[in-house]
């Protein structure tokens, strides 16, 4: 059921020589891929805002103010307040922390576990490969919503469980992609040579195969970041994500936001923009990263 075709030979990524080299790479990336650079900048801003939320946010994101319910944007509340008089800007800023946490954790978990399974599957081949592939097929065939609902129902809601619920369906997809890349490398003479030299499995996998699946791994990672943020918003919209009063973008769009869409549009517009902008930026960056890292991977 392998989707995506075997990848052409991937050359070893050259050893990185020093910081200067990195700067050059970054500046070239910016020049050649302006869209990607814009994306990267927005991602960076999101991360910084998320980390520094407690310093940047003008208000406590959970403090209600019944004297200022549904206040329109003004000098004291730049983006207005919500139905409980909570500052929308502060909630978006803290929401960035939730989104980045969920996004990075899910993407890292999903892509990494997937990559390990994919590489192991490709390296050991034979029966191991067959079994792992069947297991992945089963997971792929399972409707996403069922997996998410099951995880959340069994473990309960909360950020940690939401991360697990979103990351699990990513694993088989990541495994498929890394497996096909790893398969191509496995046929390379140097892997054979290493085996002939009697190196242990772990050493071969870690030293030779892993670096070579880095490119598809990074690409998946960035793609999953955006997906995870969206998935979190959708789960929350269905009432299966994080709970109030935690500041989270998906929560801000739920319930009251839609009811007040006409009379207090700021409640829905700004968190919606925050989600779209973040996901947009991650995708933009991921796309350009893919183009930059490897034109040979375009089969993905």
């Amino acid at each position, binding site marked *: 059921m392998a989707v*995506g075709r075997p990848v052409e030979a991937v050359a070893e990524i050259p050893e990185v020589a020093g910081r200067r080299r990195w700067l050059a790479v970054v500046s070239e990336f910016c020049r050649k891929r302006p869209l990607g650079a814009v994306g990267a900048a927005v991602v960076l801003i999101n991360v910084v805002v998320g980390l520094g939320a407690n310093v940047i946010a003008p208000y406590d994101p959970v403090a209600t103010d019944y004297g200022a319910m549904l206040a329109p944007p003004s000098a004291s509340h730049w983006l207005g307040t919500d139905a409980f008089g909570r500052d929308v800007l502060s909630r978006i800023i803290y929401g960035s922390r939730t989104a980045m946490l969920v996004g990075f954790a899910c993407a890292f978990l999903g892509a990494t576990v997937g990559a390990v399974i994919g590489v192991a599957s490709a390296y050991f081949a034979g029966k191991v490969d067959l079994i792992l592939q069947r297991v992945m097929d089963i997971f792929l065939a399972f409707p996403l919503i069922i997996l998410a609902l099951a995880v959340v129902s069994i473990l309960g809601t909360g950020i940690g469980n939401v991360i697990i619920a979103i990351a699990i369906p990513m694993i088989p997809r990541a495994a498929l992609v890394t497996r096909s890349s790893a398969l191509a490398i496995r046929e390379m003479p140097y892997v054979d040579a290493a085996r002939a030299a009697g190196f242990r499995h772990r050493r071969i996998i870690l030293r030779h195969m892993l670096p070579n699946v880095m490119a598809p791994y990074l690409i998946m990672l960035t793609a999953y970041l955006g997906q995870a943020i969206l998935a979190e918003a959708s789960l929350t*919209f269905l009432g299966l994500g994080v709970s109030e009063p935690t500041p989270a973008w998906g929560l801000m*769009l739920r319930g009251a936001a839609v009811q007040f869409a006409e009379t207090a549009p700021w409640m829905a517009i700004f968190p919606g923009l925050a989600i779209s902008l973040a996901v947009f930026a991650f995708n933009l960056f991921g796309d350009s990263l893919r183009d930059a890292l490897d034109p040979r991977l375009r089969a993905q």
Partner: protein
Amino acid sequence: MTRYIVKRLLLMIPTLLSVAVIIFFLMRIVPGDIVELRFAGESAYAQKENLDKERARLGLDKPIWTQFVTWMGGLLRLDFGTSMWTGAPISEEIRLRFALSLQLAIMATIVAILLAIPLGVIAALRQDTWVDYAVRIMSIAGLATPSFWLGIVFILGLLIIFKWLPPMVYTPFWVNPVQNLAQLIWPALAVGYRYSAVATRMTRSAMLEVLREDYIRTARAKGLWEKLILSRHALKNAMLPVLTVIALEFAFLIGGLVVTEQVFNLNGLGLLFVEAIGHRDYTLTQALVMLVAFVFIFVNFLVDLAYAWLDPRIRFR
């Protein structure tokens, strides 16, 4: 080729059986059961006696292994039984919603193809120009917009600007095509746009790959049109990944459009799915999971078949 097809078809069986086993036990690990939801909640006078009676009626008091054997037995005879919630045959519950879900999936796919193929090809032909950027931004925006958000904007837009709402009840296409399309065109557009985003990007990269072929590169001096004509043959092969993406997404659309169905008030499989899980309607959930898994596996099988047909090497792997 026949041998290959038979082999692939046989491989579907263990996968489906595993899905069946997993969903059976998964549903029973999830806390709460159907009786719990039915006899408690906002109304008072819930009594243990009623809960027990109902569990006995639904066979939930039997040992889990007995329940498992009953379910697997029914499955092998393709008999899914009755819904625990409504008591109606599951085939009837699904039939009611399947037509709508299928039609919406087909319409969304058409919208996606109509958007993705031309846009992807143009973007590739004009790589790294503003046209390319515009197409990429548009397609990424599609990926970045939460589907529930887009749906709500559609509905509110129609309501506020035109003071009009799509029909509330599904009418089959052959009964009244106008009524039918008036209801389904909006969700099809919302879903199709989002779905086209992935396909556009695939088309673009497939096209770029083709354009790198030597004979086309040498024709660089020629105009765009000629390039397009030249790449026509190569494109056929390069379109395989695009086809894959479209097919897999199509499989997902059957039963996966939970939020869209909710926002547009469509009586489809996605909402039925979520309700079935919410009610802990074991029999209906299990049947729906089997249906969705089957559609997914079968579409995959068709994709693989297409690959094998185009690339004979795969058959002998």
